[in-house]
């Protein structure tokens, strides 16, 4: 029984990180219909920024998290500006390839600069001199705070309203006087900031970081986004927790080496049974 409870707590821990990353994928997909492959690298950058702030300035967690979010938000916006914006009207396949190239570029740039070896995340304080609480508790609290903030931003603020409008119909939104480019930039910023939170939490949970660390969690979070229904924000949250649960339980009860096979297997089953994801609605095709 205790093992089962432990597994549940573990799965919530892993799941909340996946959910945070999945939110970035889903928001960007919802607004520009692009699988942002570089999002996994945003996670990596977030973790690296956190690492450097912790080692060189021995910063405590909260300012570290905020600065890392800020840095990633700027990088996310820059990526959109440099690589994706020139391709808004190009065929989707070109944009996807660019995203793939961006992902390769960022991970190999970091590998080139910092080397491929693992870096150990130093212990950090919560704020001032207060020790870090239990890591699972911390991860989940931060995730819940982020999700509430996101939900509030998207549902209640004017910028959130603009985001929803653009994702529904870009042209109509533009006609209503919404600045589409700025809204897309904002979406990238928010998604990347959430990715940075995910990255820092990931580094705190697993203790080490390296330039390719974003690839696997990125892929899994992407599976989570598809599972929940890509483009749907609550879907990404639920999907993240589900993927976390599947991974933890397969690791705990079957075998740790099969966990990844199961996660991708789930993706294929979902696409077979309900291709639009758990929360997705069927969209009629117009010719």
């Amino acid at each position, binding site marked *: 029984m205790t093992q089962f409870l432990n597994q549940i707590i573990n799965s919530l821990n892993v799941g909340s990180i996946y959910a945070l990353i999945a939110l970035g994928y889903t928001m960007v997909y919802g607004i520009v219909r692009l699988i942002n492959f570089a999002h996994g690298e945003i996670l990596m950058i977030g973790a690296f920024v956190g690492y450097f702030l912790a080692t060189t300035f021995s910063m405590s967690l909260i300012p570290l998290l905020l600065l890392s979010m800020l840095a990633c938000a700027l990088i996310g916006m820059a990526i959109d500006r440099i690589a994706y914006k020139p391709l808004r009207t190009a065929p989707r396949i070109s944009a996807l390839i660019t995203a793939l190239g961006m992902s390769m570029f960022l991970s190999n740039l970091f590998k080139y600069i910092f080397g491929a070896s693992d870096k150990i995340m130093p212990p950090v304080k919560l704020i001032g001199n207060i020790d870090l609480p239990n890591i699972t508790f911390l991860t989940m609290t931060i995730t819940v705070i982020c999700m509430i903030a996101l939900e509030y931003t998207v549902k209640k603020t004017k910028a959130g309203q603009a985001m929803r409008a653009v994702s529904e119909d870009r042209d109509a939104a533009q006609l209503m006087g919404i600045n589409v480019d700025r809204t897309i930039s904002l979406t990238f910023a928010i998604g990347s900031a959430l990715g940075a939170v995910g990255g820092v939490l990931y580094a705190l949970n697993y203790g080490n970081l390296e330039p390719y660390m974003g690839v696997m969690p990125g892929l899994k979070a992407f599976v989570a986004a598809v599972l929940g229904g890509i483009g749907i924000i609550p879907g990404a949250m639920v999907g993240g927790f589900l993927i976390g649960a599947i991974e933890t339980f397969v690791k705990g009860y079957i075998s740790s080496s099969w966990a990844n096979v199961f996660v*991708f297997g789930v993706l294929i089953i979902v696409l077979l049974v309900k291709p639009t994801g758990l929360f997705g609605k069927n969209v009629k095709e117009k010719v």
Partner: protein
Amino acid sequence: MKSLFKKYGVNVIAVVISYFILFFVMKMNLINSYFEGVMIFAMINIIVAIGLNIATGFLGELALGHAGFMAVGAYSAALFVRAVELPDSIALISGIFIGGLIAGVFGLIIGIPALRLRGDYLAIVTLGFGEMIRYTIINLRTLTGGASGLRGIPKITTLMDVFVVLIIVTAFSFLFIRSRHGRAIIAIRENEIAAESIGVPTTFYKVYAFFVSSFIAGIGGACFGMYQQYLTPDKFKFMFSVELFIIVVFGGMGSITGTIVAGIFLATLAEFLYSYEELRLLIYAVLLILLMIFKSDGILGRSEFSLVKTPTRIRALIIKLKKRFGKGVA
């Protein structure tokens, strides 16, 4: 008769000549074994990339898991030739066939659910699938040797063999793409709804093209498995799928000769950057992004290099240049 010669004869003669050049170069030991290995890997990459081009360039579906199909082909061929005692030539042919077929079956298994969907789903599913294959290989320790690799595979493939396979695959792909089936596949790329409305069974042809694509990837994998005396799942990571994909994109999605040109170009580049592995991938990435922004159709776009048409094309180019600059000179 003359037109038939013009169509095929020129190419056949060119292929035979290049075969003999390669043959004599090999016989005279002008190529050392290191360089031979480089050439074999380049050709294998080109074979797999041609397979990938059928799915991505001609069918228009992004597939990011061809390293997985290649792994299936490599492992099944390697396990086969390890298990049976056959003369080399028969083992090679049957190994290639088995590798291709099993990879093709996997392609069917993955293609049937994924290709019913539209949009980016195939990219995701193939990506996930490629990783699944790799983890399964790592986990099936008794069969595949797990993460430490499969050892004791006889070395059967030679440079000449790979060259012949490459020629056959290229010729087959050309014929396939220009057949009725190929036209149906291209029609799906151009406009799926329109193709469906004029009676092209789109799902069937998508699955068909994907089968052919993974079959060819399996053939490439089989050549690889029977050349490398040991196989590790590490080779077939997601990044390798991306590298294969980059060959296709560079050469032009929808151009088989473009794939060959890009394969040679990137292999040469890789040789120059041999000691700077990170830099190589960094340069690939930058090239990829720049290519997408400024010339998204790659080196050759959708056109093919043709020996028959080259003289006329060059003449046309000269005339065009004369028209533009000739007046000033004269």
